[in-house]
């Protein structure tokens, strides 16, 4: 299917240890899916595998997007297919300014679409950047700072969404974009995400908290437990989890043999 990210029976090991044990999940364009689950259940691993992190080896399963299995593609090619990951722990790139980085990323994409492209004109890029900075409540001077170098937790998360705003992906995985943000920050960033979201885009929103779901209304909520999606439902499921925690899942799933 052209308009969905389809994860089928995905098994992944990290340093020899199985972390994902058969994940099934489908996110269509125009949909927002929340993915919740206890620490260590494999959410970030899933996000990394979707984006092509080299440290994770896939044992089994497929990830289909735009009609192809993307698991063999390097991260840059996945990005050019419209995939985007907002990192739970964004990486510092010392000496590289936010502006230079974004311009390089944007130009690279333009070049892949059209090998003749000469890159975005500087004035046009400045205008675009200023507009997106404002969207996330960031000062213009933010663009001159080195990527994530010495950033506060909140600044890092804002930069992730700033990148998403500039790159306009079709499928975005947002890994705990709300953690590290203060109360106003969550609102600003959530509003930014809502503004970016459109019917031609899907979002997989990984979070621990109901708080962000007050601003970003998911169509579906899933629970990951011990490397598998063990429960799926509507927005009510998040409220239920907030109330009950994950203990009840342990009782239900811990004894099951892993196939």
């Amino acid at each position, binding site marked *: 299917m052209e308009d969905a990210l389809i994860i089928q029976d995905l098994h992944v090991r990290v340093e020899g240890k199985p972390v994902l044990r058969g994940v099934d999940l489908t996110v269509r364009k125009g949909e927002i899916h929340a993915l919740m689950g206890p620490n260590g259940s494999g959410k970030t691993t899933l996000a990394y595998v979707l*984006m*092509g*992190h*080299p*440290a994770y080896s896939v044992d089994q399963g497929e990830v289909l997007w735009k009609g192809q299995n993307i698991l063999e593609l*390097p*991260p*840059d090619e*996945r*990005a*050019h297919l419209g995939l*985007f*990951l907002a*990192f739970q722990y*964004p*990486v*510092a*790139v*010392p*000496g*590289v300014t936010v502006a*230079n*980085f974004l311009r*390089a*990323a944007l130009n*690279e*994409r333009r070049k*892949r679409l059209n090998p003749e492209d000469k890159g975005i004109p500087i004035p046009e890029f400045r205008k675009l950047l200023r507009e997106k900075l404002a969207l996330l409540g960031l000062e213009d001077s933010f663009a001159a700072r*080195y990527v994530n170098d010495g950033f506060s937790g909140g600044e890092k998360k804002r930069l992730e969404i700033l*990148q998403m705003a500039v*790159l306009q992906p079709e499928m975005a995985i947002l890994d705990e974009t709300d953690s590290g943000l203060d109360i106003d920050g969550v609102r600003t960033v959530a509003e930014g995400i809502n503004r970016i979201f459109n019917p031609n885009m899907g979002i997989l929103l990984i979070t621990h908290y109901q708080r962000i779901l007050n601003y970003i209304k998911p169509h579906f909520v899933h629970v990951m437990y011990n490397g598998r999606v063990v429960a799926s439902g509507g927005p009510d499921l998040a409220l239920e989890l907030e109330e009950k925690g994950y203990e009840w899942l342990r009782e239900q799933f811990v004894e099951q043999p892993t196939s």
Partner: protein
Amino acid sequence: MTGAHLVQETRGIGPESFEAFLGTREEPEWLRQARQEAWQILRETPKPGPEDEAWRRTDIRALSIEDLATVIVGDGLTSPEGMLQIVERQDDLAGGLLLFDSQPALRWVDEQLGRRGLIFTDLLTAVREHRDQVAPYLGHVVQPADGFFAAMNAAFWRNGVFLYVPRDLEIQFPLRAVIGLQKVPTDFSRILIVVEPGADVTFIDERLADDGIGAAFHTGIVEICLKENARLTYIALQNWGRYMWNFTHERASVDRDSTLDWVVVGMGAGVTKTFLEVDLVGHGATAYMSGVFFFDGQQHADYDTEQDHIAPHTKSDLLYKVALKDRARSVWQGMIRAHPGAQKTDAYQANRNLILSPHARADSIPGLEIMANDLRCTHGATVGQINQEELFYLMSRGLSRAAATRLIVEGFFAPVLDRIPVPDIRRQADAIIHRKLGILAEGDFSS
């Protein structure tokens, strides 16, 4: 280059060669004498070998001193347009100088500044016309006894650059010199900079030869004398051909309340051994030493630095960044020396190496010698590879592996390149870095 040829060749550093060399020079007696003394020292100094501590990591056994062309003159050579363009008269320069195959090919200095006493010319002309500003300094900051190649240069130097900035003259735009080689396969260059009290100047020193020059040889001396309350920004861009031997002795003497900002960009040459030293001789003197180095192929570069705190309340800060590709090798040996009585010394040195290929190698050897007790000295040395998390992060935004690597390497150098106040040099350095990165080979650490 029709009609261009090389004449009068004498090889080696023996007595006949030196006599022949002196015979080609029309120079004042004081300089002849200085050359003779230097040559005596050279005769008594063996060519350095692996048994010398400073030369343990740089093997020059393949360099035959007997075969070096010590007397050589190019006839009818014309300077390449590209070199002339760099230093021709332009609004954002205060002066320009091109020494091409040891001959002054272009020389100018802003008229107004010239009237106020600024001297910027080739060293031979300066010896003839400005004896009083040259003789007291030449050979005093770097002495023939400093080493084999210092003595060799002092005996055989052919020409060089002289910059003299008179008292209290503050110069807004840089002075720029290019020392270029194309046909003459050996060069003995010498730079002398004297900055009088209260003066402020930026000087760009560019060394250019393309790879086509082959196995050429250069030995250079740089002497800097910075008097009280003065300021010098000295930017050296070494872009020799990749098969050249390159040996230099460079030293700055920094006096009371003066600031030296010394940026070295090293990209060229086949084998380099360089001694770079600052002597902080006056109370309140400050020296910043910054370096950007990128070597590839079989290039070998060995940098020996010294931060000598001789007077109290002096500050030095060294940051050398090195990227290595292919089978390139670098050595940095740094010494901070706080002499007796140099209280309140504030000294820092850091050497960061980025290894881009499995067969590239960096040696980083910091050192402290402390003979005073009330001071602060810190150092750090690292050797690392491209961080895989950074690479993944950048690639996840659509940058190819090559583009991501390039951005990381640029970022690695940026804090030092940002210290270069001349945009054109910055652009040149960026261009060389880009070219050197090229396509990283299969098996390099970014893959």
